[in-house]
């Protein structure tokens, strides 16, 4: 489905470009548009660069480099909320990328809101840092390699008469233990990253209401660039929660979903 959607959008864009450039100019590939946007960025044309990166995204490309560069262009244009949004998206695609992490931290430091999250225990914080650094995909490949190693060890020893000595048994048990731990870590990371929907405040200042409607009481106010967790959605309203436990409803237009 996604492939088909991507093909259709690319075809539509290609047709559009062909239609506009009636002089017979050929349709640009996403890579060419990306390169042009990079050149525009280097020349200081951040608006043009942002437009180019957005065109690449319209092709159905979901690449961390595009999101990261678009985040940079938005940051230069002073659109803090959009910058945080695209850095968050880049981080989802390339967890642990030091450039993305650094730029996101810098963008967040310029945001107005300071929300204190509950302090995690030291070992859990360390484990999460390692998991975030590796990302779910790398952990999946690590699990795959460990499974292959365990199977190869079993096959190698099963081919030999009396191959399963106690030493081999211990090695195999240790290998299975490590594989299980890696698989558990992978699943938790996957759930944490892809199971949690995030959104970023795009407007200067937004009132968070007690319910989905303007007639509800204002609970608190959030500002541009704050990352919130999406709890539920209802038509034009999104229920969000903050790391410090506050939650409420925000108009959909005021948020960008990561």
């Amino acid at each position, binding site marked *: 489905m996604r492939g088909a959607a991507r093909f259709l959008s690319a075809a539509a864009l290609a047709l559009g470009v062909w239609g506009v450039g009636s002089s017979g100019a050929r349709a640009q590939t996403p890579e060419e548009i990306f390169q042009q946007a990079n050149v525009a960025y280097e020349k200081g044309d951040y608006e043009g660069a942002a437009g180019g990166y957005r065109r690449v995204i319209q092709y159905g490309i979901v690449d961390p480099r595009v999101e990261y560069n678009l985040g940079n262009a938005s940051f230069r244009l002073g659109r803090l909320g959009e910058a945080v949004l695209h850095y968050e998206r880049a981080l989802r695609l390339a967890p642990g990328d030091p450039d993305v992490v650094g730029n996101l931290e810098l*963008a967040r430091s310029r945001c107005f809101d300071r929300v204190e999250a509950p302090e995690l225990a030291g070992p859990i914080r360390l484990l999460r840092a390692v998991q975030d650094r590796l990302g779910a995909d790398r952990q999946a490949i690590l699990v795959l390699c460990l499974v292959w190693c365990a199977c190869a060890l079993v096959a190698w020893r099963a081919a030999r008469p009396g191959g399963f000595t106690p030493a081999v048994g211990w090695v195999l048990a240790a290998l299975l233990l490590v594989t299980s731990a890696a698989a558990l870590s992978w699943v938790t990371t996957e759930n944490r990253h892809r199971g949690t929907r995030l959104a970023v405040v795009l407007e200067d200042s937004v009132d968070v209401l007690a319910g989905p409607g303007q007639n509800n009481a204002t609970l608190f106010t959030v500002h541009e660039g704050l990352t919130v967790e999406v709890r539920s959605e209802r038509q034009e309203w999104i229920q969000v929660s903050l790391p410090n436990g506050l939650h409420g409803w925000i108009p959909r237009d005021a948020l960008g979903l990561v």
Partner: protein
Amino acid sequence: MLTNVLPSQGRVLRTAALAAAAVLAPLAGPRLRAEPAYRVAASIQPAGPVTDTDPIQLVIRIEGAEAPELSVPRLPAMSGFRVLSGPSTSQQFSWINGRASASATLVYTLLAEKPGAAEIPAISLQIGGATYRTEPIQLQVVKGQTGPRSPPAASPGRARPREGSEPDVFVEARLGAREVWVGQSVPFTVILFSAAEITNFQWREIPSFSGFWTEDESVDPNAERYRETVDGRPYVAYPLERKILMPTSAGEITIDPYAASFQVRRRSGDAFEDFFSFGRVRDVIRKTEPVRLRVKALPEAGRPPSFSGAVGSFRISSSADRTEVQANEAVALKLTVQGDGFLKSVSAPHLDVPPDLKVFEPKVSESSSTSAGKVTSRKTWEWVLVPLVPGEISIPSPEFSFFDPAQAEYRILRAAPLRLTVRKADRGEESAPVARGEVRLKRQEIAFIKPLRGRLRDERTPAHRRPWFVAALLAPLIWMPALIALGRRRVRLREDRSFARAGRAASRARKRLRGCERRLSSLDAGSFHEELARALVDYVADRFDRSAAGLTYEVADSLLESRGVVPELRARFRACLERCDFARFVPESGAPSRKAEVLAEARALVDLVERAL
């Protein structure tokens, strides 16, 4: 006539009365004992209109010839009435003209909850094993006094007791404003107005103030009483409650009524009774009217980003405990906001400091007081700053904004910026975090854009949902059995000589046949066919781990037969051997075409036998 009234608390007197009844009952003769039935009736006192501010008494009277053995009834659920107290009981016994009669009375004190039609349902009583029921009582409750007593002509719709019977006392809730902004403080006072002496004051209902933050102000009713004329009548006003309210949401908010009960001592008009405090005492309940407040939402236009909910009138000040420090020494920057209004929900202003300063989370202290219907708050944030490098550092003062309800606009406050002179650390401080000659970041900046290397990818699909990952995860199911089988075969080839020889038989035979082919033209017919026959015989010898010497055609045939080779193939195999023998001794049969034909037959036979085995 003998009449004796027994109060409920007088257990001794009650026992005496019962004993008297027991003694006198036989004198009444058999007629009295034959009438054990009782008459039970419920009534309301005092007669007249029932209001939602005056308690009424529900009187249940039981009459009969004998003193009733009464258990206290359980009242049914009464919607519209609240039981304030009860029951109090009393019993009465009388002897008139030789005829005895007894009665008991239960009295409950009730209060109607709201005006309108109400009903006291039937009440069941257990007397001497029999059940009696009262009749339900229908009532019309009218609104009681919540304000000053109005002249008789001014309240035609309200049933009024006759002049002088209603105590002239009322409770009033007053708000400082009828329309305020969200977050704006508004004073709220409950005042008791009385033209009579009041005792035993007690709150009966207190509203919850949902939708408000409240600050209580201490109040002493007796010390703060004052005289006030309401509707031309002089009253003594007692402030009972004083609060500062802060609405938390926009809209129309209603504060529910307060209800209080107290006793009013009324002057009897008799100087003697009044002097000796013999005036009558009456229990009274009074309610305030519900108070409505319209709360306006704060305007969106002009709202500064630093606004975090402060509404009122504030001023700001900042100070540092010193302006000249050594590098790595701490400086305390204090920012104080104070003024009229609530500051509880206001968060710390954003402090934008240069990267040469390390900033710790601020310490927050807060205080508030209420007086004269106003809340005065003071909130202080204290940051600890540690300059890392020597030089002049300017710290812009944080911005604080609030909404001024008097002007209906937002105001932004900034204290004077702080300038810090940072000197080099002393020699003893050289273990500072910034080492000499260390290259430091002058300014924090975002990393540069990423160039394009290779093609852009679609990384939306996670790895574990891609086909190659699933295939790779399932691949061990295929290659593991194959690897195990291959490994076991290699081990057997290495350790089982006959198995290894049999396994290599076909390849050796084919190798020898290839040698024959290469020398097809160079070998004479005898040598060629001899080599061919040896290749076939050696193949059988290797396959069955036998010595080739002395392996006759019959033995070879029987070996093949022992492994289930079909007779046709065996016959063909033997025919090929015999053809080779014939060709060795009959040279004209060794034409190249014939030799190639025999060679092809030998190859085919090796393949067929190998397959059959």
